[in-house]
């Protein structure tokens, strides 16, 4: 919808949703394009904004097996939402695991492409009152924290996360997401080292 304000045809939003497939970056690009920023800056900002996905990939190394091209697609589609879902489900049957991961990734991807297209097409023609719809994301993450708690039943990761986010909010307000993820993973590794030393 935002994309329409810059006066580009709707199918460019579809193309972007299909290939780039990253909400925050697609949001950001509207501002960067309006400001007339160059390609190099766009590349660097996109990479930085999405660098949290490196950590998502690291934690999925064991779950995503050697599935060739499919794995490349799974890696391509490892967004915030996909990551949340694939780490919450717990496939018992190993052969079905690949299928389930693939299905989740593909469904998320198609929802994204479809909704970006719809958003772009109806963007200028008429307006629905979607005010407040962004709360879906908040509710989704809140629900997933509860699901993670049911699975782990240990306070430690939640404590580290809250501590890191508060520190990151003060230190790097704009890059808070990347900052807090990097900080919390570091703390986790330090904690693991200390734990091993005690044993």
């Amino acid at each position, binding site marked *: 919808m935002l994309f329409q304000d810059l006066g580009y045809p709707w199918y460019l939003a579809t193309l972007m949703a299909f290939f780039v497939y990253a909400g925050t970056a697609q949001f950001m690009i509207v501002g960067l394009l309006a400001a007339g920023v160059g390609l190099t800056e766009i*590349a660097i900002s996109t990479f930085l904004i*999405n660098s949290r996905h490196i*950590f998502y990939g690291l934690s999925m190394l064991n779950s995503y097996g050697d599935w060739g091209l499919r794995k490349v697609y799974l890696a391509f589609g490892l967004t915030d939402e996909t990551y949340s879902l694939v780490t919450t489900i717990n496939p018992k049957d190993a052969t079905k695991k690949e299928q389930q991961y693939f299905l989740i990734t593909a469904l998320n991807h198609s929802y994204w492409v479809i909704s970006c297209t719809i958003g772009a097409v109806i963007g200028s023609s008429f307006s629905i009152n979607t005010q407040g719809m962004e709360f879906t994301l908040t509710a989704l993450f809140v629900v997933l924290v509860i699901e993670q708690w049911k699975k782990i039943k240990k306070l430690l990761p939640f404590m580290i*996360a809250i501590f890191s*986010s508060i520190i990151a909010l003060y230190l790097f307000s704009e890059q808070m997401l990347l900052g807090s993820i990097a900080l919390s993973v570091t703390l986790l*590794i330090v904690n693991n080292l200390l734990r091993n030393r005690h044993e």
Partner: protein
Amino acid sequence: MNNTEYILMVILVMTMATFATRIMPFLFFHGRSNHSTMNYIAKYTPPMIMSILVVYVLKDVNFSNDIGLYTVLSVVVTITIHIWKGNPLVSIFTGTFLYMFLVQM
């Protein structure tokens, strides 16, 4: 370069930059996946990241006005319904519906 060509270039550049962040771990850590530190990280990263994402989506909410109150209310309702029913879709839809109703009132 005309405008459409430029946008196509932008899309190409963004696609490569995004894909790079997602494929890198699979390329560089291939075969090292049974390392104990890796297993530890893999186990505890999801709950950490979910919690951080909650803080992230709430960080720009101003808790001293009505929106803040509506947010707190909707989050509490989402949590309560989720603990009670345990169905993610029901919890998310109820919470969002309540929030949309409150802000549009």
